[in-house]
């Protein structure tokens, strides 16, 4: 009980510190506090998988924070100042890019994310996906002008691709949501060098949709695809709402999830990056498939039938 309070407060503290910092060391400190605070939350249930997830999380996040510190120190060495927005040395920018990617879970630094999410409970997973992404996104936003756009674009497209393809083969809902998060991060990073406001918009809307999905899944305690199929009897209205949320995650008009995708594609085309825009849209079709599968299993079918017919 008190432990939980301390951890939650530490989380909030860490996030606030990072967001409102102007000096690199403050940002780093906030990141560290966040990491340390969420570790016990992950390993709350003393299941070996949870412990493993916590370990993985710790290792990767520690590496990432070390890289952040390294890049900021490098920059300070070369330019003599610790301002976050004045990151000028190219090596520092590069290292910072990889560090932030590791923190967020962008490909090719995403390998930890699905397993960590799988090892934690649904609520912790929610925290991991949303709250923990907040500081790195802020840092990304603040340093967006100094990061290499080509690298970001490549990482974004690979993220979308990997998130799509991996998500197709999953039956655990948490892993599916992990890969969906990776896909959305891809969308967010592709536009960050051209219009950081759109990144933020995407991030906020993503938080909204993911929170809804996670909480819905938490209510019905559905961690597997097969569990989802039997939930229609327990909470029918929730299931219907889940359908809409999933489709919104997929980015179908006229649901909300379409808005960031549309604006991002528009901005990319204006920047003469039509090929990237086409590629990323096509890859998000893969995501659409597994969202639809989730929605199909949850809402449209009534087990033990696998189709929508009333009779055999």
């Amino acid at each position: 009980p008190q432990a939980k309070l301390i951890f939650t407060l530490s989380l909030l503290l860490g996030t606030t510190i990072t967001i409102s910092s102007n000096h690199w060391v403050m940002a780093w400190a906030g990141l560290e506090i966040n990491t340390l605070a969420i570790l016990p939350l992950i390993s709350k249930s003393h299941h070996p998988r949870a412990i493993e997830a916590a370990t993985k999380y710790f290792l990767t996040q520690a590496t990432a924070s070390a890289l952040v510190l390294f890049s900021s120190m490098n920059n300070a060495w070369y330019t003599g100042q610790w301002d976050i927005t004045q990151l000028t040395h190219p090596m520092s920018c590069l290292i910072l890019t990889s560090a932030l990617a590791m923190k967020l879970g962008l490909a090719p630094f995403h390998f930890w994310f699905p397993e960590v999410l799988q090892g934690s409970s649904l609520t912790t997973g929610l925290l991991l996906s949303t709250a923990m992404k907040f500081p790195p996104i802020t840092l990304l936003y603040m340093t967006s002008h100094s990061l290499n756009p080509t690298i970001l674009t490549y990482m974004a497209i690979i993220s979308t691709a990997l998130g799509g393809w991996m998500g197709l083969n999953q039956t655990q809902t948490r892993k599916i949501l992990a890969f969906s998060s990776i896909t959305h991060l891809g969308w967010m990073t592709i536009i960050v060098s051209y219009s950081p406001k759109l990144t933020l918009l995407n991030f906020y809307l993503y938080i909204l949709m993911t929170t809804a999905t996670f909480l819905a899944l938490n209510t019905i305690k559905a961690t597997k695809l097969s569990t989802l199929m039997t939930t229609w009897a327990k909470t029918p209205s929730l299931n219907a709402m889940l359908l809409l949320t999933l489709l919104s995650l997929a980015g179908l008009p006229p649901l909300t999830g379409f808005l960031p995708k549309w604006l991002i594609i528009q901005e990319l085309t204006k920047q003469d990056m039509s090929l990237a825009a086409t590629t990323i849209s096509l890859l998000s079709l893969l995501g659409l498939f597994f969202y639809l599968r989730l929605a199909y299993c949850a809402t449209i079918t009534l087990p033990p039938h696998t189709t929508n017919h009333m009779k055999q």
Partner: protein
Amino acid sequence: MDLTLILTSSTLLTLTILLTPIILPLLSNSSKNTPTTITNTVKTSFLVSLIPMTIHLYSGTEGLTYLWEWKFLMNFKIPISLKMDFYSLTFFPIALFVSWSILQFATWYMASDPHITKFFTYLLLFLITMLILIIANNLFILFIGWEGVGIMSFLLISWWHGRAEANTAAIQAVLYNRIGDIGLIFCMAWLAYTMNTWEMQQLSSTHQIPTLPLLGLVLAATGKSAQFGLHPWLPAAMEGPTPVSALLHSSTMVVAGIFLLIRTNPLFNNNQTILTLCLCLGALSTLFAATCALTQNDIKKIIAFSTSSQLGLMMVAIGLNLPELAFLHISTHAFFKAMLFLCSGSIIHNLNGEQDIRKMGGLQKMLPTTTSCLTIGNLALMGTPFLAGFYSKDQIIESLNTSYLNSWALLLTLLATSFTAVYTIRMTTLVQSGFVRIPPLTPMNENNPAVINPITRLALGSIMAGMLITSYIPPTKTPPTTMPLNIKITALLVTALGIILALELSKMAQTLIIKKQNPLHNFSTSLGYFNPLTHRFNVTHIMTGSQTIASHLMDLSWYKLLGPEGLASSQLAATKLATSLHSGSIKAYLGSFALSILIMIISTY
């Protein structure tokens, strides 16, 4: 007096009189059609149509009527325009005369049919559409008539629709006609596209018209007039009742194709390719049909093949750039061919349905009127001097001999002329003379005036028509006036040769030995192997080809490899690859992180 006005109004009156039996029963419930009323309508129509014809012959008046105009597009208006010139005004009385005789005959022939009124209505509808075709001034109205005669031909051939062969024959007729229609529609489309008109007046070629649309016209004529290549439907069309064969397939419908070529003659007057094509096609059709007629045993089929042969001759005349001669042959041919069919109909009915000439014989004593008219018709067909056929046929062959043309076409046509004589004499001999081969108790009589009057009327026509028409038409091209004696009597010579040959052969065939099969005889009997070759070969290959396309191309290739399933299988491969990367060992992960950072650093330096 305004002759033009009388001309135009009397022609329209003719058409209106013909429409009366169709419209009146629709208006009032009390007036019903009977076969006799329809016959009388046609007779009245014939008498009225004599008026414009005499006016034309007397003063050379021609008329052109524009009825209502259909504003199809902004600048492409299709008027209903009717042209009353020499061709249409002369053909109207001829067609109506022949139809009147046939209808009168049909009141006897089809007397036992319960739906006889419907039969007569069909024949009347056919006649109306045929006349629309004749009188049309633009290709649109002609096309209406064209399609109309096609449909009525289908309905009439399959009159006894319980019989499977009749239905097959009707479908065959429609299909072959349709293939010809492709040509006509193509030509119409091309004309609408380039010349923006379908009127005949505007169709004269001031500049060279490319050969392709004209080929379409020739294709249309081949389909409708059963030239070689699209000919099998004509013998098969003998499944219909004899009045149908007489009206459609001897006098009127089959000449529609030739008539089209006559009308559009200004288009290809100077196109040597088309003229040569017509010539050779006509010669080939003539010879082929004549060869097939040599060994036929069904009396109606012999007459059908002779029609086909004469149509080839008409095509030859067009190929010689002599459309007036072709028209002359159409007119004279109508008389004696219709009469031949009516005589054969009378014989068939009297023999209680027997159509095989091997089972007829010695009818001269039993059906004197019919057989004498049969003889007159056959003589006219062969081109005996001063009967109807002579005037047209001999002129065509004379022009053939004195023109600068393909000698192969010449040879074929002459050969066909002699063959005509051969099969005609064969038919005459086997039907009329010799020993009697019919079953003993056959009651036959020809006392019914409904039988005798039409046949004798047409016989009169066969004798007189040639002389009458020739004396009244102005020759637009100078006929060859001087030629050596041999050339002049070529037609007569070959015909006489054929007669002698036929008489000799018939003497040889008096005994009833079964002949040994030889290839020539087989060729003639199986109609030149054309039917099975094309019907089976083409259809099989087209069907299997489309089956292959449907299964191999669509199902296997597009769907499985490239389209939906291909997409699914490629994505599946990608997913499997990606899943194998996520092994779960943190060492691999951290190693890949380090590798990626290294790559990034190296690539930017």
